[in-house]
């Protein structure tokens, strides 16, 4: 490689040939030096207004219509206009080709940073991380969203906007509980899914024969026969994917309503890996852009001035305020992720005795990128932190663990700090903060009263005494009852099976009629 290929660009202005040149330069470094493996890139330049549009539909380029997106849009717009909120430099979509949106007002340096960050960092992570491989279908997502959009529009035409809106409202309320957390037998293929939806409808239409209604059925089994064990087995209980359960078993839903639940469920599933890999995803992208930008500068393709501009925004991005700082609002995933990636780089290339003791597998192996690529492919935030947060980084960030027990009148206890006795505990607790199992309430369908009033019974297993917010829980359960169209009950149970609280909600007449 030539050491001085001349500057990629000078000044702040960019045009499309420069973008192309920047992309090619980044790609060369990403492939040959970092060994990244990415989806093909598609770079789209958008305006601030289009960025706001993208914000309100979860970053996706197309989405079905729903008022809640309009609400988010109005909200973001008001904030943006007042200057309270800046806009992101980019949005990147886990799809193949991988679409990165760049803001038009970025300077050439920022475009380089953003291309290195999104089009190579995030892109590599999307393509290689096991969670994304397992749960998302990058090839099919845009087609599926297109299908979802037109399907929702069709439903609105056929069944009225209000009915569709009610179903979607209910489905959105349950979205966080419409996720399969454990892989099933087959790989998710959204394109086949879309085809199947069509085939299902076609088959139902072609196989319709009124005669079947008159065929006598066998003798009805008595309620005793259906022992509760067997019944629960047949219904696939307990089931934590509430949307799936409703889609398959809710007695009075229309076909199109089931399809809508399915759409919402699939979209929730698509975003599930992203919520579990924020630190890693941003850490990877930040590390990649840092390496690429530094290398471009070393090669003399980025002027000193532009490199300083890059360092300024890079430093802003990886800034982590302390807990007592006014700006503190939790951990900055960019800062933590980048710090850990750099720390791994140090451990692999230049370990000290402590590192050898804590990370015998990787300390001093020398091939930084091989280790990092392996980490990026096989971990999520929780496992990543619990494996790779080093004592040195804990000391550097001066981490400490607070235990807040409301029973404890005296106050909040400092449970562990960055010392020899505390490293493992601090690390375990921090990892737990990123464990979805702890973040989302654990709610399951446990039983259905088939013989009686068809009440749907749910159970919230309370962890560490954190119960559901009552007002919100009632609203969500109301939506659930509307979909189920019979009573729904939820009990909150602690670890020793004591019932802490019980909710019962009846369906509204409105939704039953829809």
């Amino acid at each position: 490689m030539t050491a001085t290929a001349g500057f990629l660009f000078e000044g702040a202005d960019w045009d499309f040939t420069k973008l192309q040149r920047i992309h090619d330069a980044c790609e060369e470094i990403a492939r040959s030096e970092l060994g990244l493996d990415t989806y093909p890139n598609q770079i789209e330049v958008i305006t601030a207004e289009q960025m706001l549009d993208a914000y309100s539909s979860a970053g996706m380029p197309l989405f079905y219509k729903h008022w809640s997106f309009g609400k988010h849009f109005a909200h973001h717009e008001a904030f943006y206009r007042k200057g309270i909120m800046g806009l992101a430099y980019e949005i990147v979509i886990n799809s193949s080709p991988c679409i990165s949106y760049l803001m038009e007002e970025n300077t050439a340096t920022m475009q380089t940073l953003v291309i290195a960050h999104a089009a190579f960092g995030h892109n590599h992570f999307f393509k290689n991380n096991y969670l994304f491989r397992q749960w998302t279908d990058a090839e099919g997502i845009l087609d599926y969203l297109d299908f979802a959009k037109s399907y929702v529009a069709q439903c609105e035409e056929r069944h009225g906007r209000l009915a569709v809106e009610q179903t979607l409202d209910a489905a959105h309320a349950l979205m966080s509980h419409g996720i399969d957390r454990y892989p099933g037998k087959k790989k998710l293929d959204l394109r086949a899914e879309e085809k199947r939806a069509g085939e299902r409808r076609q088959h139902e239409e072609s196989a319709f024969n009124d005669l079947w209604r008159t065929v006598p059925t066998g003798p009805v089994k008595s309620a005793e026969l259906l022992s509760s064990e067997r019944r629960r087995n047949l219904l696939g209980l307990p089931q934590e994917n509430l949307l799936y359960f409703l889609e398959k078993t809710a007695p009075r839903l229309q076909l199109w309503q089931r399809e809508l639940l399915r759409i919402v469920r699939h979209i929730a599933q698509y975003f599930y890996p992203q919520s579990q890999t924020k630190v890693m995803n941003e850490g990877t992208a930040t590390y990649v852009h840092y390496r690429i930008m530094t290398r471009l500068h070393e090669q003399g393709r980025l002027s000193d001035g532009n490199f300083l501009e890059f360092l300024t925004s890079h430093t802003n991005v990886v800034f982590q305020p302390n807990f007592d700082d006014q700006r503190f609002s939790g951990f900055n995933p960019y800062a933590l992720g980048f710090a850990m990636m750099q720390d791994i780089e140090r451990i692999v290339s230049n370990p000290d005795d402590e590192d050898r003791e804590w990370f015998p597998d990787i300390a001093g192996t020398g091939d930084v990128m091989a280790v990092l690529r392996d980490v990026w492919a096989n971990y999520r935030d929780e496992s990543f932190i619990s494996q790779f947060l080093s004592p040195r980084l804990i000391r550097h960030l001066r981490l400490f663990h607070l235990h807040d027990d409301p029973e404890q009148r005296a106050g909040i206890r400092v449970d562990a700090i960055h010392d020899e006795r505390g490293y493992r505990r601090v690390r375990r607790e921090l990892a737990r903060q990123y464990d979805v199992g702890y973040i989302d309430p654990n709610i399951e369908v446990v039983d259905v009263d088939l013989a009686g009033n068809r009440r749907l019974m749910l159970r919230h297993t309370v962890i560490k005494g954190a119960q559901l917010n009552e007002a919100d829980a009632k609203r969500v359960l109301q939506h659930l009852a509307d979909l189920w169209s019979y009573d729904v009950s939820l009990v909150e149970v602690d670890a020793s099976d004591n019932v802490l609280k019980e909710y019962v909600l009846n369906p509204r007449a409105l939704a039953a009629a829809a």
Partner: protein
Amino acid sequence: MHIVDRRLNPGSKSLENRQRFLRRAKALVQGAVKKSSQDRDIKDVLEGGEVSIPLDGMNEPRFRREGGTRDMVLPGNKKFIEGDILPRSGEGSGRASDPGEGDGEDAFRFVLSRDEFVDLFLDDLELPDLAKRKLAEAESEGLRRAGYATSGSPANISVSRTVRLALARRVALRRPRPETIAELEAEIADCGDEARRVELMAELAALKAKLRRIPFIDPIDIRYRRFETMPKPVAQAVMFCLMDVSGSMSEHMKDLAKRFYMLLYVFLTRRYRHVEIVFIRHTDRAEEVDEDTFFHGPASGGTLVSSALQAMHEIVRSRFRPADWNIYAAQASDGDNSGSDGAAVSRLLTEMILPVSQFFAYLEVGETGGSTFDMPDSSLWTLYQRLRADGVPLSMRKVSDRSEIFPVFHDLFHRRRKQEKAP
């Protein structure tokens, strides 16, 4: 790798979602719009702007956990050691509850555009007695200039545009100018050297060929003036503003009247493409004036309402044929009228004015501070009330405070039920 420029894509992809949101929150937003418009000047009323609505009914509930024992790992330890107990309220935890957060939950602020604002503001209002409605909305087509086209009738050729394009083309294609050829010919004539002469002859031949190849005016240069049909209103609205400007009318009262007129104007401009305003002020005699004089010009004298009505009648007769114009009138006064004028007023109103008007509103303005209920019935009010009792279509309200203008306006134009409208 592809680079796509999306900047030129049609914007407002979120427009439909936004409209859905507004529709859903309509009642709330409308309330907020009314509330926010009360505190504003009329000029600003229709500027759009930020409104804030309660989140009730607009929230998107999720299962959320709260309370219980909490564990957190934080960065930036300075002095804590294991086993320290930090008091719960205070700086120790560094997580003092943020008061701003609670607010954000309760109210939802966002910006409405001008159109959205006016739509919501006037949404439940309707023009009364639309006898001429059909006429009002029927439109005929007219023609108007709309740029240039590459095709058209020869009569419409735009010479200047055509020549301009031809010139540009000739320059771009480097058509030799006649002067250049003349110079060259002169040079050939003077030239003694044979070789040079042959060279120049060849050059001249090439230039001449080029001159023939590139025409002075090419068919592609020709442009025609383009005309476009446009709707032309056949029925328009005229709005008469009648106001008593005698000494008893204070600035405050005029201000109230002005606000009412402006609202009426905005309202009418949304229904009619063309709205004219006629200002008639009167003391004991009436005159048509411009807006500035109307509101600010000094005047004094007694009060004869009939003079204004007479003036309006004459203007209608001379300039606004009732068949072509929708006539609206709003009269503002403090209610004083000379006692002997009553008969003339009622005759003018019932025989001349009301039969040709779509709507006649009388606004009685009072001094600030006084409640409308305290205002004693003035002579004009009593007179109009008597006329109304006889079945004359008059709308009348009393106003004494700025904040009442909007409610009164709404009240006057409130959408009535069909059965009420029928008779």
